């Protein structure tokens, strides 16, 4: 079942035109997007799909961007009582041939202490930091405050 979902997901992901594509040895980033912020006092969020097309495990350790002083990868979890909380995700392993999805309600890039507002229609540079030192630079388009996914 899980494998079917994965295949379906890949099929759907492949059918979207990529908004940005970074090709470093073995890593492809697809569908990056960020929500516009209201001013610069609230944290921003960004989402994307990282594919490890290489033959070795890759470990994502964090992100860097000039947009925020404290960009971090966080994970939202919801307990049996329906209470959601966020916590730093720590290092994330991506097995060879697998992909990692950052999407609303789960893993996300949290842009804490914005240096400037995230303005709808603009985009910004973001670096995915990998343990092996082969970092990946991408451009993240900024969608509306109420955007739900990369397509709107």
């Amino acid at each position, binding site marked *: 079942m899980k494998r079917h979902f994965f295949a379906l997901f890949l099929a759907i992901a492949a059918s979207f035109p990529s908004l940005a594509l970074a090709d470093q040895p073995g890593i492809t980033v697809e569908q990056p997007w960020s929500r516009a912020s209201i001013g610069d006092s609230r944290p921003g969020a960004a989402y994307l799909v990282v594919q490890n097309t290489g033959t070795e495990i890759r470990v994502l350790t964090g992100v860097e961007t000039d947009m925020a002083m404290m960009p971090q990868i966080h994970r939202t979890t919801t307990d*049996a009582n*329906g209470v*959601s909380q966020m916590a730093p995700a720590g290092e994330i392993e991506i097995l060879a041939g697998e992909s990692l999805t950052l999407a609303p*309600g789960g893993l996300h890039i949290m842009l804490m202490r914005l240096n400037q507002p995230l303005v709808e229609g603009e985009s910004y540079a973001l670096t995915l930091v990998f343990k092996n030192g082969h970092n990946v630079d991408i451009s993240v388009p900024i969608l509306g405050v109420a955007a739900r996914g990369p397509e709107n």
Partner: protein
Amino acid sequence: MISRRTVAGYLAGSVALAGVVLAIGWWQVDGPGAAPAAPLRPLPLSEMSFSMQDQNGAEVSPGGLIGKPSLVFFGYTFCPDVCPTTLSDISTWLTELDAGAEQLNAVFITVDPARDTVAAIAQYIGYFHPALQGWTGSKAETDHAVADFRASYTLGEGPDYAVDHTSGVFLFQADGRFAGVIDLHEDRAQAVAKVERLLQP
């Protein structure tokens, strides 16, 4: 005639069986096999007794929602992931409703009144469906509201604190009775079906 030995054997067997049954019972009810306790149901809106301010600064209370079905969501405007996602979801459901969004109340209640003033909440909900209301109040009123909904929240620490909070959308019938919850990860079609069901007479 049954020998004393046989009786003793039956007795020992029964005691052992009872022990096993008790052990299984403990495992399923209180032990590691126990299902997680179901969250308590919110009070009917008619029995809630808090009052807050809406995005226009007007005094509002849950009793005022009776007459139309209601969707109620707890969150805070500094929430980067769950809250904008859920408010976008609610906005989409409202847009997709055949009967029209004015047939429903949709209320966002902040669990972070220190940062979410009336002005802050008004600006925030302005980015979502125009039918959305945003309520804020004192810390005491917020705690009262959270208790009446049997929800919970925990303020984080530091200047950039996050707030853990109940993230489901509470559903209420037009008469104020609790009608269920739409969870954060619930399928969109299923969520809209739940909202449509609220509107059926």
